[in-house]
């Protein structure tokens, strides 16, 4: 592959990878916010 083809593939994989990580973290945080509650007497 040429360097440009590599760069374009990197762009595709990179943005997909970042969004995959961010989406997974977002889902995880939503689940944490929903289920990981503190005990009432503790903050």
């Amino acid at each position, binding site marked *: 592959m040429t360097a440009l083809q590599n760069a374009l593939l990197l762009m595709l994989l990179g943005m997909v990878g970042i969004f995959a990580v961010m989406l997974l973290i977002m889902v995880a945080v939503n689940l944490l916010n929903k289920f990981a*509650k503190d005990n009432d007497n503790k903050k």
Partner: protein
Amino acid sequence: MQYGKEVYIVEVLQHFSFLWESIVAFLKGVDVNQDGIVNPGALLADGTVSPDITGWKLLVMLAVGGLLIYLAIAKDFEPSLLMPMGLGAILVNLPFSGAIGNAADGSQGIIDWLFKVGIEASEALPLILFIGIGAMIDFGPLLSNPKMFLFGGAAQFGIFLTVAVATLLGYDFKDAASIGIIGAADGPTAILVANVFDTPLLPAIMVAAYSYMALVPIIQPLAIKAVTTKKERMIRMSYNPSSVSRKTRILFPIVVTVIAGLIAPKSVSLVGMLMFGNLLRECLKLDNLSQTAQTSLANLITIVLGLSIAASMKAENFVKLDTIIVMALGLVAFVFDTIAGVMFAKLLNIFLPEGKKINPMVGGAGISAFPMSARVIQKMALKEDNQNHLLMHAVGANVAGQIGSVVAGGIILTVVPKLLGA
């Protein structure tokens, strides 16, 4: 033996012959060997200028060092890094500098030693700095508004676009990837990636990364105004943060490390150090360690890192056309990071109902330059509408950008060698 007065004077003058040699080095030219030792003895016999380096390049670097110190002190541009870098640039570009190279007795110049041990051998300095950064960051605004994570992803686009532009300009793929990472708006990540790829462009990349971070208040408003209307910049966003539990705050750094590590294993060192620092902060059991990481550790590493970076700012590495091109490409990366974040917000707005729309400027805060970018967005919002407070939204996007940039660095470190078949 009894010295005559004349002999004594000659000997004293000989002791100061280095002054003459320095002047020759500046005016005519000197040779620099692979260890960076300035060797006036390598001047060509006919008195012509050595092809390796000429004195004017050393003078340029002294001026660059002075400029960095000026920007740090007079203009308050990232003073904690630009000041050590500026003085370091002067130290390594003085002819016969004892701060660089290998002495005949085997000892090493302190700046070269710091660079070799702290950056080249282990990337320890930028990685340890991440512990301090992680301990400083309050992810609360992001955890209470998780959709802001998406902007931390979108605003990394400039990195990959710049890689493509750099390859079009003929740069080797690894060099292009190292240039692109300037768009991470994250000095330690840029240093780490450029160093792992062993690019000769490292000094220019480091200076660009830190300079543009300091220029965020100038670059971002121009880029944002170019792609938004006044009406869009006036969109108000309500802020109703849900409370974030302690359990969530403690589990968050662990979850992020595992997710990022599974998708981009090379990001573990970056994300892991950042999240370790954050765990120190959030566990509430290690306040002393957290405070030390935020203050003493971060300050110590910053001092040493700035000087270490200067090791790569020797004239023969820095005074060349590539440096100007790298600086220009770094600007491209920063601008398109910002534009990508803004455009992503505008894209989301197509699907969001009235009253739930996102001010596109918040997307521009998805870069890693924390907290400058968030402050810029807040200032711009207040300028358009003095009742429009976007700070907490922008802070959320901004800290998401911190995570996004280290993930981007990890992805580049993972994917580039695979694409090259290494």
